[in-house]
């Protein structure tokens, strides 16, 4: 991440005063909203990465919604669920790890969405 070296990390700041200043910004509403957004961006990134495998599930979901007599197609969706379940775990784990590496402890600057996405 381009700004990783230039950005300060909360854990690395030892000086009490600088810590306090950092925390003031870190805990502000804007930053908290940004962090939630960041998590969603990361999840989206993983969803897109796994698209090559999971796209049929999305289409089935769509199909189930769009067409009448939803109930008869529910089975088709249900048999796909166990696999989907494990994939979601993988995505969550990945998103969580990237969140920990690139978001926790950092102040998110403008353009953070693009950076997280391209990381």
């Amino acid at each position: 991440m381009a700004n990783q070296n230039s950005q300060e990390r909360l854990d690395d700041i030892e000086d009490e005063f600088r810590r306090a200043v950092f925390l003031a910004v870190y805990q502000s509403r804007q930053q908290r909203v940004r962090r939630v957004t960041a998590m969603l961006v990361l999840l989206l990134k993983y969803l897109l990465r796994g698209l090559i495998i999971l796209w049929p599930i999305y289409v089935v979901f769509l199909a189930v919604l769009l067409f009448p007599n939803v109930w008869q197609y529910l089975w088709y969706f249900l048999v796909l669920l166990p696999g989907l379940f494990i994939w979601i775990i993988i995505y969550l784990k990945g998103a969580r790890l990237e969140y920990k590496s690139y978001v926790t402890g950092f102040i998110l600057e403008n353009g953070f969405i693009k950076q997280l996405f391209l990381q």
Partner: protein
Amino acid sequence: MFKVRDNEPDYAFVPKVDAPEKNQYGKSIELVDKNDPLANKSLNINGEDFVSDNPNRYKQHGFYFNADNCISCHACESACSEKNDLPSYLAYRAVGYVEGGTYPNYTRLNISMACNHCDDPVCLKGCPTRAYTKFAEYGAVLQDPDICFGCGYCTWVCPYNAPQLDTEKGHVHKCNMCVDRLEVGLKPACASACLAGALDFGVIETIPENRDQLETQIPGFPTPEITHPNIRFQQTRSLPREMTRTDSIPLRYERDEQGTGNYKSKVRELDKPIEWNLSKLRSREDPLVIFTLISQTVIGAFILMFLGSIFGEAIGLSALSITAYPKTYSLVLFTLLGLEIFALALSTMHLGKPHRFYRAFNNLRYSPVSREVAGIAVFFNLLALYSLLATFPPLLTWLISDLLVESITRLTGWAAVVAGPIALYFMHKIYRIKARPFWNHWQVLTSFYGNMLSLGSMILIVVFGAVLLYAQQPIAQFISILGSIMLLGLIMEATGLYHHARDLHRQGGEGAASHYEQRTRFGKTYVLRNILMTLSIVMSFTLLLVSPEGLQAYLLWLGVLLLVNAQAVIGRALFYVLVIPTTMPGAFFWRNRGFQEHARESGLAEMHQVGVLPETH
């Protein structure tokens, strides 16, 4: 930059000597011309922009090991571990030994091995994420743990046990030729640390002072033909004709009496008892057992159902046509899809870093793993497209004509029928590893294709058989056709396994040692698998002859299918667990698989300083 000490002794510097033009395999030692655009670039070590002025920078370098002198003092291993901050459960360099003779005429040959930075690095070619790079600088083969996702394939293909899969961190790392030291003219830490004049380093094919040989092999070292490793040996001391290992691998090394005097690996029959060891069938590769079996089942079931739906009418498989039982047809399609998604998820979880799964496609050019993943992905996508179009034509009919949609559906189905077996072919290529003789046999292909047919037909028999029974239709012919396809698959697999056992036994070495393990450590399990297979074949044959009808037929065939299933799972588990790679001999505790297992079982591994991670999965 690595700091050279103020009074750095002479032994620590890489000697500046003349080297021949080509190495013993005919390859040029100068890796790139000085005017090449790749030359004179910084190695970018830790972000530093430094270029060494060493005139030999683009020559292939390698280790020189004098096996006459090594005393197994562990200084080289420790210097490496210290420099690279390695934990106690993992090391880039390891010293093992082979021993022979009778007291007091006893000889121990110690062997220190790290990475040989081979001319033809199989690790680099095999890696699906392209985490490896062979640098023109020094010919070093370096691996990047940040790119790696921990599949461990490189650890399978390397004959010298160089890459280390760190199960705690989830990635592989390995010897980096201390390129930071090389850039300032110093030998790697291990060679600088050697206390016995055994381990040395320099431009390949140059002989250090006071030495005179440039051997490419010593007893215990695998054939250099696999990768053309950049290591040379001196071994002049007389050795006993037979040398054995102290780690638990049932191998010994016997001198080829006639001819070259090289040592060949042979089985060492250790009088082991014949056991079940069912619990040891479980291993780190469990997800791959399931993944390969499910993929083969899915591909087989789909091919049979699709082809059956088109051509089935003529031979009594009309139940499979789309119009006969459309809901069942679609449900089977989606179940196959769901199974495959599950299998893919499992095989992804097998990675050290599952969330890096998307990197698997990075090395389609060389890596069988990349190709297999791509093949399965292509098959899967076609299967998905077919399933969606066959089940929900309205998805497209609002856009294009019904006829066109039907054609497209048919086309994707046919494409999937072709893609599936191709994917399985790539899947088998993964196991055709020269360093793993137990796997490197065409039996893998017959097993995979055989399973495809036998397990695939199993799904159709179970599902459609039940549907037919419920609809009170005759099932004898239906089951017989599918049953004979299943039988065909079984026979294919059995033939392959028979030849495999015979060929292994003949070729000796690690393959025969695996077979020995199969007959002893897993002896009873092996016999069970063979019995189940034979029984399945015999019973199928009988049922085909007798051709029962109705519920009776269904239940009888169900019985056979359970046997088939059991033998497939046992067989696949044995396949993974039995492989003895051509690894370097270990020592009594360190790099001894038997001790590692014992440490985990007895709880010794709970102490971190024992150097064994408590869990493998």
